[in-house]
Structure formats: structure tokens, C-alpha cells
């Protein structure tokens, strides 16, 4: 769910012990390890998630969630992609892409989204967008394969999204 929420710009509403409610943009809800790797999110002590809000969007016809894993079920993603497209007359007016399994938090693929905006929804453009996103990836010894797997996953998820969930 977190990957899809990231793609859809969800807003996390949390309530503190004093009853006060605050809103956290989804991109700010999970955190990178920094010097506190034990902290996965930005919740303060005593806060509870009470609501998740998904802003209205035009992605209902063209979205897809792809999860690639080491076994068919009960496994964390090697790479997962949530992709959503708003296509008008063959042109992408807006694309949303988030990737799981590649960073400490759901990774919003802003580079790929930017590369697709205003372009036609073709396989070629999906390839270019995926390559643009993965270009800056910094793999470690044991996860190098995720650069290629992530690139493929973005392309495949976009293709599936474009076709309304069909290959």
C-alpha cells in the first residue's frame, strides 16, 4: 500500500496525545536512515495514524501495481512499482510512479514522471523514462541487479497501467 500511497500523493493524518491533528504529506511520512536508522517514520512519540487521504485524481482507468519477489506470495518485494497515468488523446498529461524495494522509503520516481509529462504513451518513452530514473541509482554489492530489475519493472508497470491492467 505504501508504494501506491506515495504515487498518489496521499496525506497521512495523525493525532497526538493532546488530541491535536496534523497532516503529513506521504513523501515526508517515511524517512531515510540518516543517524537514526531505527526510526522508519516521522511519527512523534504518542502519535497515532487516524486517517489517510488520497487526493482526487484522474488515474482510475490507468493504474497498476507490480510486485516482483523471490516467491509467489509471502515475500517482500525485490522491486515493486506503483504506476498511474492520465492520458488525454495519446498524450500523458500526468504520470505518477513510486518504487518499493530500492530505498529505505517508498521512492517517488520524479525523474521518470518528469520525462513522461507531455509525451505520448509509447513503449519507447516508457523506456526513456525508466532509464532516466535509474540513472542516478547507487547500488550496493548485493543489490546491483535491482538497477536493471527496477528499470524493467517501471516499463512493465507503465505498459500495464496504460492498457488498464492488461499486458
Amino acid at each position: 500500500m505504501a508504494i501506491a500511497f506515495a504515487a498518489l500523493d496521499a496525506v497521512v493524518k495523525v493525532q497526538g496525545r493532546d488530541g491535536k491533528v496534523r497532516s503529513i504529506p506521504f513523501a515526508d511520512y517515511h524517512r531515510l536512515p540518516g543517524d537514526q536508522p531505527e526510526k522508519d517514520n516521522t511519527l512523534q512519540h504518542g502519535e497515532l495514524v487516524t486517517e489517510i487521504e488520497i487526493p482526487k485524481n484522474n488515474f482510475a482507468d490507468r493504474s497498476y501495481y507490480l510486485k516482483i519477489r523471490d516467491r509467489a506470495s509471502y515475500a517482500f518485494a525485490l522491486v515493486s512499482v506503483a504506476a498511474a497515468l492520465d492520458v488525454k488523446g495519446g498524450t500523458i498529461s500526468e504520470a505518477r510512479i513510486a518504487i518499493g524495494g530500492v530505498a529505505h522509503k517508498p521512492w517517488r520516481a520524479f525523474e521518470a514522471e518528469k520525462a513522461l509529462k507531455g509525451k505520448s504513451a509509447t513503449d519507447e518513452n516508457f523506456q526513456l523514462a525508466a532509464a532516466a530514473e535509474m540513472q542516478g541509482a547507487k547500488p550496493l554489492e548485493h543489490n546491483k541487479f535491482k538497477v536493471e530489475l527496477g528499470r524493467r519493472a517501471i516499463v512493465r508497470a507503465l505498459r500495464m497501467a496504460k492498457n488498464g491492467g492488461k499486458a
Partner: protein
Amino acid sequence: MNTKKKFVGEGFDRIDGLLKVTGAARYSTDFPVQNLAYGVLFKSEIASGKISDIDTVAAEKSPGVLTVMTHKNAPKLNERGGLRGGAFLQSPNIDYRGQNIGVVVAETFEQARAAARLIKVSYEAAEGKVDFEKLAGTAIPSKNPGIADAVRGDVEAAFTSAEHKIEAVYETPIEHHQPMEPHSTIAVWEGENVTLYNAAQMVNAAQSATAATLGIKPEQVRIVSPHIGGGFGSKGGLWSNIVLTAVAAKMVKRPVKLALTRQQMFNSVGLRQRDRQKMRLSATKDGKLTAVAHETVTHTAIRDEYIEACGDCSKIMYDAPSSLITYRHVPMNIIIPTFTRGPGKAPGSFALESAIDELAYQLKIDPVEFRLKNEPAKDPSNGKPWSSRKVVECLRKGAEIFGWNKRKMEPRQVRQESYLVGYGVGCGTYPARQRDTSANIKLTRNGNEVRASVELAASDLGTGSHTIIAQTAADALGLEVPKVAVKIGDSTLPPAAGSVGSVGAASFANAVNDGCEKITDELIAKSGKQFFVRPTAAQMMISENLTEFQTRIDAKPPANVNDYSIHSFNANFAEVLVNEHTGMVRVPRFVAVTGAGNILNPKTARSQIIGGVIWGIGMALTEESIVEPRYGNFITRSFADYHIPANLDIGDIETVFVNEDDKIVNKMGVKGIGEVGIVGVAGAVANAIFNATGKRVRTLPITPEKLLL
């Protein structure tokens, strides 16, 4: 046996099935024992070195704690008593990470666990030998004659001069057994005698090893193990937890229950070792093998040796005029490996069957045909005749059922939506043996109703021992199956073979059959009458008006078994779908054809083979334990990240037994099927992946990262 039996050979439901589905079957920790205290193990957090200090003060003061046992206060135990893996708290020395270094005993499990977390251990750590990849070059030969180099003919000359050959290295990872029931014990002392409720694949061996470790007589130890929630070899040789529970119970003068947690199961009860297997095969252009070389490098513990015999399948599987089988190993700071389903043969057959497939492809010969061309008329390793060998029948039958004729020789020819489709074949084998087994056969009569009780210290891993014993006895005594009570899994009963190495069914069934024949003979002799048609024991009890009669049998394997080469064989066929984009693999269809002599119960036998196939698919695709090279611990220690196949990973599995009437293996013609079911499976899957993708993956498991095509 040619005589058609009424019950043997029929697919009876397990006679203990109702007990199991209603929760009435008692596993080790289910026995109702009063006044129990609870033990929790705590473990070394370094791989090598010694404990400089253990501070147990806070733990001892923690609520409910009865005692904390460490090497400082543990009683003297015999570390060479026959239990596996050391860890008896006899010294501060550490040989592997996860070695038991103490036990907390408390009024409740939660109190013991909470107290264990308060224990502070200081170590003098030494550099551990934990990285196989770095140490493999230092491997040494074993002194164990069972795995000495086996050389036949001149492999080097044959290989060098051959026109067609393959040389490749196959890598298989550490795997864990992980039966449903974790290893656990309840220890109850009465004076100087102890009863241990503890699952044991070999009841008598568990008794003698435990007694020897404790320094008491075997008759002072009673092992109770009527049902076992799986073992896969890890409950064959038992581990220090059984005896630590016994001594903890003695210390607190109360019964103690100690069950390993799922996480502790990863570093307490052995493993399947990491194997590196170099294969060299050569053949003539017509596809006749000229050389088979299978050289294995693996690891074992620092102080003890266990080496699974990967190359042994290559000794007998195919006919070649020359062969070379070697084993080298590295002593490492990792828990000792142990028997793991299809020991040696399961990873060994992955290497052999992959290499055979590679060479067949190079020769452009169908891999089934290639195997048929190299079928040995007798055991190539020793020249002995086979007692029976149905590899040809298994291959032909399997090919027909599977639809092998639709397979394309060239890879990447068949597509189905986003998937590449491939077919693969792999054969397997495992020795068939009967072991000495004794049994009591007791008959009672009430009016015209005769009942039997069959008693022996056999074991039932969940595989159906209770049921095949009842079927055998019912046939041999002339009773219906429900009239036969089966008592097993107790060391006070006559000694029996274990459920290990596929010897259980053959040993139990032959002993029980012999015992029932013997009691019938004795009843006839006692009557002083002569019969034209041999009466059953049940009829004799009625006609002689006896209310009770019993006998004991001490059965042995046939005298001439060593004149023959006696093994089970199989052929496995896999269909795989490989997602071109993601590298994810599915196995929608699998056919396993087995030649394993007389099948006592096709229903329980089918379950055995299905279990073997599933683990084989897991071996091929998902299972892997990685050792952290700095600390020597296993990185994945839960079912969330140590991947055994989930339901969705497994498609249709069809099991077939070919008709095999083997009069040599033993009187009942039983070969055993527990081990062979996994052998050849991973090879079939890997070969199917090559056929689908054109990619030869020689390192298991074949995860998506290895299939980014």
C-alpha cells in the same frame, strides 16, 4: 511377494489421522506433566573464541527464575556420547555462533525468556572461519573411508581426448530443515531414571546417545516419541537441547519443558551444507558417456565431521567406463551439517542431472534419449547386479504422461503471454536398505473377536508408519485393520530401526510380517494339528480357545543383500513458466515417476513424494541461507525471509509408481521412498528453465535476479 494382499498396497487413510486432526495426538510438549518448570536456551553471539565472563546475577533475581545453568555450574557430561553439535556447557570455548551457552529455568516460559535477556556475556572473540567463498581453496580430504576418493578407469585421459565434453561448477547453498514441530523436550526424573518426551527419528539411538552423554545406563533413560511433527534428518541424530533439559530438570528437582523457538531452529539442529560441485562429463558423438567426474568441496564443523556424499549418485546413475568421485572439506565455525532429506543425493543430483542436460544439448540429443543410451546393465561402481532398477520405465512412463514429445530441443521456442515455457527432466536415486528390527506381537480374544497389539520402538515422522504397520499386521494375522493396535515411539518397546535413510518402511513392515508369520507358526505348533490350508493366527486363537498369546521377533535383512546393488530410482519432469520481464518462475506442472519396490500404501506414499517434490522445487527456486561473513550468523532466521515454497509457488504434482516386484531387497519387496522423492527434482526444474530461456543457471536457488535475461 506375489500373493495379493487384502490391505498392504491399498491407500488406507492414516490410522492416526483422527487423533491428529482432533488435536488428540501427543507430540513432545503435549504430554500432561504436573509441576512443570520451563527452560529457555541462550546462545553465543560470536562464532569463535571463548566466554570470558557470564553475569547471571540479574537473571537469577528475575521473577520466577529457578536456576541459570552455564558452563560454570553445569554437571560433567560426555561430549562424545553420540549427540550432535557439541554445546553441552562443558567449557567456555565457542565453536560457532548460536552455540548453546546456557539455560534459564523459571516457573513460566515468559519469565525464563525475560530473564535470559538479562544475562550479560563477555567474550574473547577470535577470528571465525565463516566465509566459505574465501576458505574453499583450503579444503582437505576426509579420513572417513566412506567418502574416500573413488577412481575407476582413466577419467583424465578420457576427458582430455573426448570430442564432446562439459566442465562446469554447480553451487548449492546452506538449507535448514525446519519441520513444523520444533525440537522440544519434557524431562521427568524419578530417582536416577529419566523419561524424555522428545521427538526422535531413531528412538533407540536417542536413548543410547542421551544415556552415554549423561553418563548413565541406557535402561535409565526412556524416550517417548509416538508422533513426530516432521524431522527431515534433523531429528535423526539428536542435539544438546535434549540432554540440557534433562540436567536442568535434575538441577531444579522438577520436570522441565524446553522447546526451541522457530528462530533458534535455524542454528541449533544442523543444516544442509553449502556444496561446490565440479562436474566433468565426456561422451562420444553418438552420446555414449566416456567419463564422469564429480568433485565436491564443502564444509563441516571445527571439531566434528559430517559430509554429505554428493558424488555418490554419479557412481551409479549412468554407465561410463571411467569415473572419479572426490570430496574435500573445510572445517568452519558453523554448526555441524547433518542428514537433510536426500542427503548428498539431492544437491548431487542437481549437479549431475544439470551436467547431463548440458551435454545432451551440446550433442543435440534429447535428454531422455541421452539417459536411455547410458543406462547401466549393472552397478558401474562395483559390477554388482541391480536387485531391480526401473529408470528406463520411469523415464518412458513419465515422458508419456508429461507429454515430453512436445518439447523443443532449442530453448526460447515456446511462449505463453509474458512467459517463456520450458520442459526439463532429471533422475534420482537413493539406496534401499532394511535394518535389524524387533517387535512384540500380542493377540487377545474376547468371544469371537480377536485383537492384536504390535509393539516396536519404531518412529512415525507423519509419513504413515503407524498405518503401514497396521496394514501389514492385519494381512499377516487375518484381522481387519481396526483390530490392530500399533504401539511405537517408546524405547521400552523392542528395538527397531529408525525413520532415517529410507529404511523405516522396509524394516518395520518386514519385521512385523515376520513376527505375524512366527506367531501363526507357534499357534499351529501349539495346537499339535496339521492343516491343508494354513490358518490365520486369528482363526487359531478362536479354534484353540486362547484368550492371550504373544511372541517376539528379531528380524534381520536377507543374508544376500550385499551381493546386489539395491536402490530406488525416479524420473522427474518439470514444466516451468519464466516471466521474461521480471524473471519470476512458476512450476505449473510436475510429474514424478518412482520405482521403489512394493508400495505399501499408495496414499501415504503419494504424500511422501509430493513433499519431496515441493522441497526440491524450493531447493531449485527459493531456499537459501546466507552466512554473514563478519559475524558468522545466518542472515535469514524466520519464514518471512528464509523462503520455503508458499502454496502459490506449487502447481499440479502428479506422482506415479511403476510396478516393481523386487524379490531380493527383502521379503516384502519394500525399498522406501522418503529420501528419493527430493532427488532429481531441482535438476529437472533447472533444466526446464534452460529450455525456457536458454540461460543455464548453475547456482541455486534460481531467483529472479539470476534470470534477468
